[in-house]
């Protein structure tokens, strides 16, 4: 990092629990998360100098109709849409504001309700042979088939991922699907596509999450408790390139993004204590564990079965419950990952606490495809 770039810290986190869609307006969901983050940081809304709202499904211009209810201070407000990575991108925009000196305190809010009518792909003018037939579950079922065929793993490993994440989510009050379910029950469910069953596929509902970022100057000036500030050691965004035929783009993109993020943070993959990944489907967690480098090629299934990625294992993956249990309301999802990692690195995660956690990574993909990663570090641990 050049000397002119400033350090950036997460100083406040807030969340509105993820849940099935309800008549509650998004304004209320978002304000709950923002007020939670302000209270957590010990700040007032008038301390916040810029705001980024991550949302993909509701529609245009949702920032100001929500944030004005905190007292319209006239700060810059921008809505960020980047599919599933909308919230992660909002965090990155807030990070860049602080790092560049454009603001001392910035907030990223993710909020969504499943109201989407269309998307960029559908409106792009391109049609293919399977338009309307390949939903995400089918897309990832094909990936699961390939993984099982080439690695020798069995569907039990996929179910073990889902069972682990639901066990974690059961301990997260913000999780949408708080259900105790074991490997046997997951395998016995009717399949949705290929080997994927209901609890291996994420629920898409509503919710909100917020993080407040601040500079060192702001922490000192505003009397923020430095012992609860968590440093963002890297914020990296990449997009898909043209890969060789047959290569799974999301995995390749994850490899590249992780390499840049670890280098920027000055750490190695072995330093990671907690990792949140885009585990919308069980197979994704196995593939990204390998793409990040936590497990060697073809080894993730065995390592998951051995408990390496359980809370208390060598690196807790999806300690929040992940997308499979905590849920994937889209706009909030990436912000919620940063909320979880911040909570873990503060040692405040209660019964889902990863012991001794001091370095975490949040990994999020957005269809298109984009990849956003944040590395968070607790410096005083």
């Amino acid at each position: 990092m050049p000397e002119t770039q400033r350090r950036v810290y997460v100083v406040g986190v807030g969340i509105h629990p993820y849940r099935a869609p309800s008549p509650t307006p998004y304004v209320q969901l978002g304000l709950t998360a923002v007020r939670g983050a302000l209270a957590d940081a010990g700040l007032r809304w008038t301390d916040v100098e810029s705001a980024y709202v991550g949302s993909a499904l509701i529609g245009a211009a949702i920032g100001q109709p929500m944030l004005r209810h905190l007292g319209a201070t006239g700060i810059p407000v921008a809505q960020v849409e980047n599919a599933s990575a909308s919230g992660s991108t909002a965090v990155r925009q807030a990070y860049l504001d602080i790092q560049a000196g454009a603001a001392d305190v910035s907030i990223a809010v993710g909020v969504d309700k499943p109201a989407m009518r269309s998307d960029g792909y559908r409106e792009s003018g391109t049609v293919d042979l399977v338009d309307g037939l390949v939903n995400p579950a089918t897309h990832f079922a094909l990936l699961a088939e390939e993984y099982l065929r080439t690695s020798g793993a069995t569907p039990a490993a996929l179910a073990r991922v889902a069972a682990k994440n639901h066990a974690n989510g059961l301990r997260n009050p913000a999780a949408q699907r708080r259900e105790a379910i074991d490997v046997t029950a997951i395998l016995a469910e009717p399949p949705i596509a290929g080997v994927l069953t209901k609890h291996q596929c994420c629920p898409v509902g509503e919710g909100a999450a917020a993080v407040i970022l601040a500079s060192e100057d702001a922490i000192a000036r505003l009397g923020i408790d430095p012992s609860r500030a968590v440093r963002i050691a890297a914020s990296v965004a990449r997009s898909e390139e043209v890969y060789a035929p047959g290569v799974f783009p999301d995995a390749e993109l994850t490899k590249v993004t992780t390499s840049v993020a670890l280098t920027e943070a000055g750490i190695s993959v072995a330093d990671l204590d907690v990792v949140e990944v885009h585990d919308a489907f069980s197979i994704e967690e196995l593939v990204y564990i390998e793409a990040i480098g936590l497990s060697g090629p073809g080894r993730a299934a065995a390592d998951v079965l051995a408990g390496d990625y359980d809370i208390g294992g060598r690196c807790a993956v999806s300690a929040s419950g992940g997308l499979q249990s905590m849920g994937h309301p889209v706009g909030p999802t990436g912000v919620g990952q940063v909320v979880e990692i911040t909570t873990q690195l503060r040692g405040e995660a209660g019964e889902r606490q990863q012991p001794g956690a001091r370095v975490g990574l949040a990994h999020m993909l957005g269809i298109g495809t984009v990849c956003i990663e944040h590395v968070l570090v607790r410096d005083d641990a």
Partner: protein
Amino acid sequence: MSTENAPSPARTLTTEDTPGSLALRVTRCAEDGLIAFPPEQFGCQRCGAHGDRLVPTAVPAIGTVVDAVTVHRHRGPGPEAPFSLATVDLDDGLIVRALVDGGVVHGAAVEGSLVPMADGTEWLVFAQTEKGI
């Protein structure tokens, strides 16, 4: 969804210059050789070349199944669930996703044809060839 006046996407995306031999319409980038399917209309995704640098050509709808899955839930046009969907490695090295006959598995040699569905839509469906039996 097909109508009386509009050809189905499957028909638009294929050609049958030789009777009985269906082929996929593709483009080949004259700058870097990248083959694109569906045919690229906006610009090469590797080098950005566009317009007449994207040359229309065709790839036979013949290949090998990489992986296939059964889709158990589906709402929308086309076949009723359950149906089979696969990744198919065409003999020219292009990889596409398409419907396949049920029971087709990894490694099967397949050939595509246009198949009408009960709802009036038309789809490209790959079926196992004698070569692969």
